[in-house]
Every structure is written in C-alpha cells, then in structure tokens.
C-alpha cells in the first residue's frame, strides 16, 4: 500500500516539476502586419456592448476602432448601449451627468436575449471563441476572435444603396439590399438592417473621471426590419439574387449626415453572422 502510494506520488511530483514552468524570454511579443481581404474573405461584425457609465468602455471602443482600421472595410463595429451602464440617471448623485438615453428597443432586446450583464464585452459575428458556452468575451480576446473570422471564406456577396429624403417634418430612409450566397447553407437565415450614428458628443466615464466631450461612434439606434431581421429564403441556393427594399421614418433627433446603415446576414436560430455591410445613410 505504502509503496504504491509513494510510487504514484513520485510520478505525479516528477511530472509536475518537469513540465510546470515556462519561462518566456524577452522580447515577449513580436508584431505582425495584417491586411484586409475584402474580395475573398468574410466581412465581420464586432458587437461592443457598452455604456456611458462604464469606465473601461472607452478602451474597448478604441480597440474596436483599431480593429476596424487594421482590417479596413472588412470589420464593422456596432456599439450596443444597454443595461446597467447605459441606464440614464436623473437621480443618482454619483452620476449627475448621464442624462442621455442611448438605449433603444433593439439594444435592450439584444442585451437581454444574450444576457449581457457586464461591460465592456463583445462578440465577433456572434460566434463562440475559446468557449463553448458564451459568445461574449473580454476585450483582450477580441483581436484573436476577429483574426479567426476574417480568415474565413466569404459566404455571400452583398451590396446596399441608401437614400434619405426629407418631406415636411418627416425624414425617411430608403434602403435597398441585394445579396447572393456563394455557398449553400443549411438552416434558416435572416437579413437584419440596423442604423448606427457616429460622432455623438456627450459625457462618458473614462477611468476615474467623467469626460464631458467624449465622442460616441457606431452607436446603435435600432433595427429597421425587426430585432432579428427578416427571413430570407434561398440560403441553400447560390444563384438567386435576393433583393430587399425598406423605407422607414427616422427620428428627427438623429443627424442624417452622421447616420450609417449596417446590414448583416445571420442564422435565424443561432444568430451567427455570415456577412455584413455598412454604407452611409446618404
């Protein structure tokens, strides 16, 4: 009995000690250049769940912009303002600045469906990365997750034309999206068309202080064809060109010259995103 135990223990110990310390020598990191391949590879959606009261969120926004620039025209960010950190405070003295309400039915629905409770967190194409249970990850994982998605072959070709008309007091957006799948896909797919606004100035918690003139970009204003988009048939057909036209009235508070329309194809069940496109509203 004792002998066996000693034997097992010494095996355990030796293996533990032999393989249990990796010392990394400087330089700890190398750099690599990356290039977007908009022709052959997938275009990628990076969803950044954020809030004006979240002190680490500006860092995440910067990272999002960095990734957009690194993979130009291949990566698109949507900043989803929802939940605790986006809750405007009219009462709390600890945040007398946060009067703006950037939340909207779409951001609230996405946030509660995905059960987002902390900020900043994000997902890339709503796909699992280094996890089998949660598509959301800390900012430190974003680069790797984007890197994995931008390498995938393009799933569809997509184009979009937008126009904004102002008649009387009404601002109307008309969007036309055309797409064709490049590969046959099983399952049901939706096209979701959303509006984002750039260059909104307002207070944001940055570290320990409040920055009054912080600039919000990629801010989700809402979806124009339902929270999860509209079903598109023929996902298992590479010939049909699917064409969708939308007209929707815009809020008068939005500045049309800062609006963009982002359209993406997603699996109706898993919500996994296959392809994405972004164009100015006008």
């Amino acid at each position, binding site marked *: 009995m004792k002998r066996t*135990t000693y034997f097992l223990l010494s095996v*355990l110990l030796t293996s533990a000690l032999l393989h*249990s310390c990796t010392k*990394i020598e400087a330089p700890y*990191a190398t750099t690599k250049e990356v290039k977007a391949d908009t022709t052959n590879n997938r275009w990628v959606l990076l969803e950044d769940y954020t809030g004006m009261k979240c002190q*680490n969120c500006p860092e995440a926004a910067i990272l999002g912009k960095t990734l957009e620039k690194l993979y130009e025209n291949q990566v698109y960010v949507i900043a989803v303002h929802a939940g605790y950190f986006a809750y405007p405070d009219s*009462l709390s003295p600890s945040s007398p600045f946060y009067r703006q309400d950037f939340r909207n039915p779409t951001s609230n629905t996405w946030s509660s469906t995905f*059960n987002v409770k902390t900020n900043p967190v994000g997902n890339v194409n709503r796909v699992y990365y280094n996890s*089998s*249970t949660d598509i959301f990850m800390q900012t430190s994982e974003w680069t790797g997750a984007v890197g994995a998605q931008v390498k995938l072959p393009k799933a569809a070709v997509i184009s979009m034309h937008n126009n904004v008309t102002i008649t009387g007091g009404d601002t109307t957006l008309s969007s036309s999206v055309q797409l064709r799948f490049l590969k046959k896909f099983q399952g049901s797919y939706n096209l979701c068309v959303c509006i984002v606004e750039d260059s909104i100035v307002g207070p944001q918690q940055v570290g320990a202080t409040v920055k009054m003139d912080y600039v919000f970009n990629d801010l989700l204003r809402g979806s124009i064809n339902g929270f999860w988009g509209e079903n598109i048939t023929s996902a298992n057909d590479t010939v049909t060109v699917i064409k969708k036209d939308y007209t929707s009235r815009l809020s008068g508070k939005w500045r049309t010259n800062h609006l963009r329309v982002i359209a993406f194809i997603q699996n109706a069940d898993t919500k996994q995103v296959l392809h994405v496109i972004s164009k100015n509203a006008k």
Partner: protein
Amino acid sequence: MKKNQNFFWGLITTLFLFPSIATAQDLIKGSEVHGNTQLDAIYYLPDAKLGITDTTLDGRLIRMNGYTEVNYTLGNFTAGMRFEAYLPPLLGYDAKNEGLGVPYWYVNYKNEFLEVTAGNFYEQFGYGMMLRTYQEWTLGFDNSIRGLRVKVTPIKGITFKGVYGIQRFYWDPYNNNTRGIVKGFDADFYLNDIFPSMADSKVKLTLGGSFVSNFQKDKTKDYAAGNQILVMKLPQNVANYGGRFNLNIGDFNWFAEYAHKVNDPSSVNKYIYKDGNGVFTSLSYSTKGLGLSLMSKWIDNMSYKSDRTITNNMVDINYLPAITKEHTYALATMYPYATQAKGEIGISGTVTFHLKKNSALGGKTGMTIAANFSQVNSIIRNPVNDIDTVGQPGTLGYKTKVFGIGNEVYYQDANLEITKKFSKKWKGIFTYLYQTYNKWIVEAHALPDGSTTVYAQIGVADVTWNITKKHSLRGELQGLWTKQDKGNWVAGLVEFTIAPQWFFSVQDQYNYGNPTTALRLHYFLFSAGYTYNSTRVALSYGRQREGVICVGGVCRYVPASSGFTLTLTSSF
C-alpha cells in the same frame, strides 16, 4: 435544459427523499448521512425612489439561490454531493449562475497514512498564497478543483499533498481551450512531531513549501495595438511556488509565507510579463488578559487564475488575504476593503486587553478594549526602460522596489472597540472608526467630483438588555459622517429575542446627508426568525441599500433592492 429534465427530476427526488429513505432502512450499519441546506429567496418589489422598475428587474421578480449538500460516510469512505439552483440568481450574483445541477461531488478514502479524494475538493496550501480553493455561499464564490487529491502522512509530523484538476467556472463544462489544468504539490513538516527531542519543547516549529502550476494550451495571443498586431508569447505553464514557517514560543507566535510567481500575462495585469511576488507575515503575542498582533503584507502582481482571460472573482487559484479588520455593523461595512492582487503594501496592528473585575478602570464587572489600525498603500511602479510605459501590454510591465511604499493610500482604518458589562442584565459594545477609503481603487468608481477617496467617521453603540433569562432586547445606534460620496448616515436597530427560538427586529438606515435631496431615503427592514435546533427560518421585508459584501477580502457588489426575503438554513 429540456433534454436534461428527466435527470433533474431524478436528482431532485433523490436529494429530497434520500435522507429519509436512508434512515428508514438504516442502510448499512456504521454508515452516517449528514448534510446541510440553505435557501435564499427574494420577492423583489419595484421601488421608484431607488430607481428599481420592472425593467431593471428584467421582469423576474422572484429569484432564489439554494443548495443542498449531502454527505455519506461508511467506514473509511465518504462520498458527497451538492445540488445548487439559481432560478434565477438573486440580484448582485452573476447571471452566469443561472441554472441548476450538481457542481460539486466527491468520493474520499481516508486512513491514517493516506487520503485520496476524487471529484471536487477544497484545499489550502499553507496560508493560501499559492493555492486555496474554498466556497463562500454569501459571495457566490466557489473555486473548487475537480480532479484528484492525494494526501500522505508517512510519519507523524510530515504531510505531503498533491492535487490535479480543473476549477469550477459557473456551470461551464471543461473546454480544452479555456480553463487551465491546475497541478500542485505541498509539503508540511511539524518538527516537534518529527524529532522526539523536540516533542516537549516550548518552541514549536512548522516548515512548509508548495509548488503550483497551471497549464493552458494557447502559445500565443494576438492583441491589436496601433497599426499592427502584437503577437504575444504565452507561457503554457505558469508556476507559483514558495515557502512558509510558523514559530510558536510560549505566548509568541510568528508566521510568514513567501510566494513567487513566474511570468503570467493575463487580462488582470493587462498582459505584462513581470514575475509576481508576495510576502505575508504575522507576529502575535498573547497572555491572559492581553493580546497583541501585527500583520504585514506586500503583494506585487500576484493575481493567479486558471484562465488568464477572466477578470472577475472566478477561477482564482491562490488567496491573498486582506489584513484589514473585518467589520460587521451595517454602517461600518459601507466602505470595506478588498485585496488588490495587482499590488499593495499594508500593515495592521491590533491590541486587545481585558481589564479585570474590580480594577480601577474595569469597574465591578470588567471591560475589554480592542484597538486596531491598518493602512494599505500602492506599491512602487517604475518604467522598465525609456520607451515602454508602466504596464504596457507585451512588455515586462514595470520595476518595483521590494517593500517600497507607494504614494497612493488605498485604505486606512483606525478603530476602537470597548466591550463593557454594566451589570448582570446590561452590557454594551461601543465602537469608533475612522476610515480612509479609495473608492476608485477598490470599486473602480470615482466620486461625483472626480476625486477618489472617502474619509468617514463611524460610531456604533450596541447595547443588550437581558430582560429575563430568555428574553432580551438589543439596540444599535450607528452614525456615519463623511463629506464625500453619499454623505451622512444614521442607523438604528432594535432586536428582540426569545431564547432559543424567536427573534424579531426592526432596523432603519437613513441617508439624511445625501447631497441629492431626492436620495435622502430611509431603508427600513423588518425581520423575524425562528430557530429550532439547527434549522433556522427568517423572513424580512424592506429595503436593502446598495453595498459591497466582503468575506475574507473577497467582495461582491449588491445593488439596492426592495422586497420580501426568505432565508432557510438547516444542517442535519
């Protein structure tokens, strides 16, 4: 969930019926079944003044956390499991807790020489700076390891321990790419048992050492920075090792532990490659009527988790105790301190003395006085070279000075507690505290004016009146005075108990000094409880203020709420 429903029903039946069946049949002679259970259920009410609406509650007004643990012993074998359910979790607990199942089970064999555990286990090496797994229900904290533990006692006084496994992360099944595999070895030598010559010595000495390592698969990590991508090399194995001693000579006791962690870039330290170091030491002297204790600690980059991407309280491998005094009075817990694993240096001293009956100061009945002072500061962080900034990802990070004291005060607490018995029927505890609390460092929230530090004075009078042998009335009067944060508070509590079964209490916390008039709110709470032997049921109704609950230096944020709370605990 649906797929597993049969399993769950089976499980629930087993858990709830098993104990009674087991007794009824008295399964096998010499076997014992024990367990314990706790249920916390809250019916939340919207409360406009606290800013709580149906929406902020997600429309889920009824929430519960509950567990039942059952252990079965037969001879040298023990087996047990814990069933947990969060449907959905109470506010302030991570939403990832939602669900139910058996996150903890084990089989254990033990004799005088050998102990083997398969399944989940809780273990501590030394004082915990290299490895400690434990569970703290009130915090929703559980970092148990699932795997194998072997403990060997070759001769009296010598203990070897080996552990191997993966840590719990909510309900997530083990996934090869994420959480690491924790391996650990610990040796403990109690010299007085080993050397017969020391057996009766007044000097008692224990020496120990541990080696812990965590394996994660990934070898590199991409990190976008500027116009390029940083490809960081990752250590697959992160080691943390060190030693300790405990020396006891008569009334003196001195212990110290040192831990050294080899490069561990992680989300917590923002991917810097500096080694981590930690020293924790305590010296105490006590004799009848007098107790002295001095603790100090230096922590530098010592967060140690089995998943380098996690930043919250989960998957901690080691434990870095806070050395500040743990307070329990409502207002004294307004500004609790939590260890800053990234780096801190602190000192704490406590004096407790008892003035005897019939002495000049002690009066007819005696008096106990306890004074405590603690302060925690930042550590010194200097740039490694002229190019890289402090803490820049993908670099060494910074250079520090061993035991160097940084300028920033994280926490300071000076407090005095007097326990006095006035007569057979009356006694009281009187406490005064002066606290300096760096809200930015501890909670990552700055104050409204952009400053970071709260200075608070707190006074508590706690008086008990034993009306009869079985009936007693206890009252608390508390005040907190500060010019920062939420301003002044006053709190009162009256508690009536009928031993050994009943208690009733009414309490109120009133934020009368809040700079915003609309937030000068009362937080009334009515509670009643019934205890029968080891079963206790308590029901309360009222408001709960926003706060941070800390146990052992680990903290959990609790949002303000309003509603009915049911708490049930039982052990059998």
